[in-house]
């Protein structure tokens, strides 16, 4: 697959090769679109990405089914269609890098390596869930896997991600925080407060804008003024790229560039992932704001999993191997579902735990 980097807008097409910039300097060019890949990763890496994406797809399909059966309550925002984004990012990340996102978060958790049993059991509100049934779909965390949520307020995860990046820098860690936000969140004021501080202090944070075209039922063009969302950091000197977010290798290429930029101490980077969610905003969304044809066209022509499956075939991964992978993934999801259905509900005593951490230093403890 060739490198395809082209300017968006009316500028003439040009492949941009020199991308390194000093901190605080504005991007030299308008937004560029990353839609291809420089170097084809080893086949086993491709297989791994395929597995991760397929797991998210099958997991989310099952979650949707369980929601329909009344086994998952509340809000449930599915990631189907957007799998290439988080998997591409994670494939480019390094150990110790941190991830924080909003409430469409199941895919991110699985891509971070969190156990599908624990995620599914949290969706069903059971004791075996990551938050022991107290967080639900939108609020799950794993310190062990460097996944910091799972946050339910649109945009609120963005300053938190900048804080995680701050802690990386403060502790001289070579790590980057990947902070995900949607095309709806980009209009929240705190996002720009975050851009400003991240750029001002050269913090290692990649802002990954998952532009799935709709903020709930509002098309981006009806909510967001100005140019591409990738350009929203221009005033702060934050470089941005638009990326074909349905193509996991394009995502990976862009992520490698962005993460290297951050790791080298050049401050934040913005990646606008052009992606699409096949399902409604949440399970209760009838999605009347778009046509069935639009969704079908996206599925047929741009499906991220179909795309990587074709690449695998080109790399001589045979049908038997692909079938075996499908069957393995199905087994993982079946196991997770059974676990989520059989794990007990949290003990009533859990109602009053985890409100405050206990004090261990006796000097801090108020005595009668």
């Amino acid at each position, binding site marked *: 697959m060739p490198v395809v980097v082209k300017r968006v807008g009316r500028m003439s097409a040009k492949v941009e090769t020199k991308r390194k910039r000093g901190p605080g300097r504005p991007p030299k060019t308008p937004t560029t679109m990353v839609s291809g890949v420089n170097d084809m990763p080893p086949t086993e890496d491709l297989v791994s990405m395929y597995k991760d994406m397929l797991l998210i797809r099958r997991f989310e399909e099952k979650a949707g089914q369980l929601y329909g059966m009344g086994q998952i309550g509340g809000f449930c925002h599915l990631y189907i269609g957007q799998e290439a984004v988080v998997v591409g990012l994670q494939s480019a990340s390094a150990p110790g890098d941190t991830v924080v996102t909003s409430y469409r978060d199941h895919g991110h958790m699985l891509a971070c390596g969190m156990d599908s049993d624990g995620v599914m059991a949290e969706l069903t509100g059971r004791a075996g869930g990551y938050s022991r049934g107290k967080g639900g779909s939108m609020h799950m965390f794993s310190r062990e896997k460097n996944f910091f949520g799972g946050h339910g307020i649109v945009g609120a995860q963005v300053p938190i991600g900048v804080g995680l990046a701050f802690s990386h820098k403060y*502790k001289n860690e070579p790590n980057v925080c990947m902070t995900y936000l949607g095309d709806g969140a980009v209009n929240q004021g705190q996002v720009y407060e*975050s851009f400003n501080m991240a750029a001002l202090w050269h913090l290692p944070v990649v802002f990954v804008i998952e532009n799935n075209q709709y903020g709930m039922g509002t098309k981006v063009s009806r909510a967001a003024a100005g140019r591409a969302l990738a350009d929203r950091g221009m005033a702060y000197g934050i470089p941005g790229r638009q990326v074909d977010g349905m193509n996991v290798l394009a995502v990976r290429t862009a992520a490698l560039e962005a993460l290297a930029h951050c790791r080298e101490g050049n401050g934040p980077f913005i990646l606008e992932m052009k992606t699409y969610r096949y399902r409604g905003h949440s399970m209760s969304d009838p999605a009347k704001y778009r046509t069935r044809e639009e969704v079908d066209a996206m599925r047929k022509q741009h499906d991220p999993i179909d795309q990587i499956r074709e690449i695998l075939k080109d790399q001589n991964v045979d049908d038997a191997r692909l079938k075996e992978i499908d069957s393995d993934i199905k087994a993982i999801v079946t196991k997770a579902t059974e676990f989520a259905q059989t794990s007990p509900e949290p003990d009533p005593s859990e109602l009053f735990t985890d409100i405050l951490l206990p004090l261990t230093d006796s000097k801090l403890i108020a005595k009668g």
Partner: protein
Amino acid sequence: MAIEIKMPALSPTMEEGTLAKWLVAEGDNVRSGDVIAEIETDKATMEVEAIEDGKVGKILVPAGTENVKVNAVIAVLLEDGEKSSYIKAISPESPVTTPANRPANPPANSPTTVPATAPTTIFAEPVAAADVSWTGASTTLTVRESLRDAMAEEMRRDENVFIMGEEVAEYQGAYKVTQGLLDEFGAKRVIDTPITEQGFAGLGVGAAFGELRPIVEFMTFNFAMQAIDQIINSAAKTLYMSGGQMGCPIVFRGPNGAASRVAAQHSQCFASWYAHCPGLKVVAPYSAADAKGLLKAAIRDPNPVIFLEHEVLYGQSFEVPDDDDWIVPIGKANILRSGTDVTIVAFSIMVGRALEAANGLAEQGISAEVIDLRSIRPLDTDTIVASVKKTSRLVSCEEGFPFAGIGAEIAMQVMEQAFDWLDAPIARVTGKDVPMPYAANLEALALPQVDDIVATAMAACDGFKG
């Protein structure tokens, strides 16, 4: 006509300052805008400019004079043609405070020795309130200094402690609470933020998730309303939502409550807002010793702590124990004055007024017990209830609004736990249920005063005194 130059106020709460230096001498000609003197407060050094052209006729307050009251005449300018004989009749109008009005610093353990002052005082004079458990040496410090010392000591102790906020570093703190910290700890750990409360509050939460220990200063808690989503939804709730994984060791601190003449948007007590939410601790110290000990406890606490200071108290002095490890545990009230007839509970600035009211009540033959809550959440209901079981009457004091205030919660708790011991309805003294007005007379009416506490406590005792 000679022009009087008066001691200027440099801030809404300044009442007096030091005339540090004269830059002109008698006989000098000055033009409007010329700097003629420097004055100092505990917060800052400021220049005084001539406001009209003229000749310095007489300097009435010599350089180096301390405690010069705002509005005292400090010099006289003569206009063209005026002779200095015009000013002979002018004399300084008591520019220096008398020792009787100086902040009192009686020995520790003896808060009851403070002399009673007129009950019409708007802002109570400070009263020493060192912890009764301390018997070692102590030093007189302002609340401002003690807060700074607490942060400095904890920053020396733990390199993951840092402070961020508006003007905390190079400016040395909008209210000078962070004075000197930048010099000692450097820009990595003492961080000036842009004016972006929601952003830096959220950044602090993320840093706390990243295992740092942020102290986030709000220039005042009025501005923290911009950040309250991050404080409640992110800092307070995430531990629960994560099944206990995501502790958030962070301190949000800054001045809270009414300053002076800054009107509705800058004068509000937020104690009940934050105390309402599980997942937060809320403290509101009165004395410098408690300010220091509680702030150190807050910084070491693994949970988010809302630390409510009071601008009017910053400059007030108290005895503070000489102990680098001086900790006041969060959640423990302090009985500052023992009494038998009525219990008065208060926090922050209202503690001083409650102590003053207790003196007034004593003159009326009523023995009041005064409890400094110190911590709003957890609330030390044990201490309140034990006191009510002794006195059978309770008056709750707070600067905040009455509706759903801290007093309402205290009344409910006491009703639940000590109903049978009560001999009178629980009464509360609060700020009036109005946005804070600007006009001086209206502001005084809106704020709970010493007289209000005296009257409310007497009403509670009415008919029950033998």
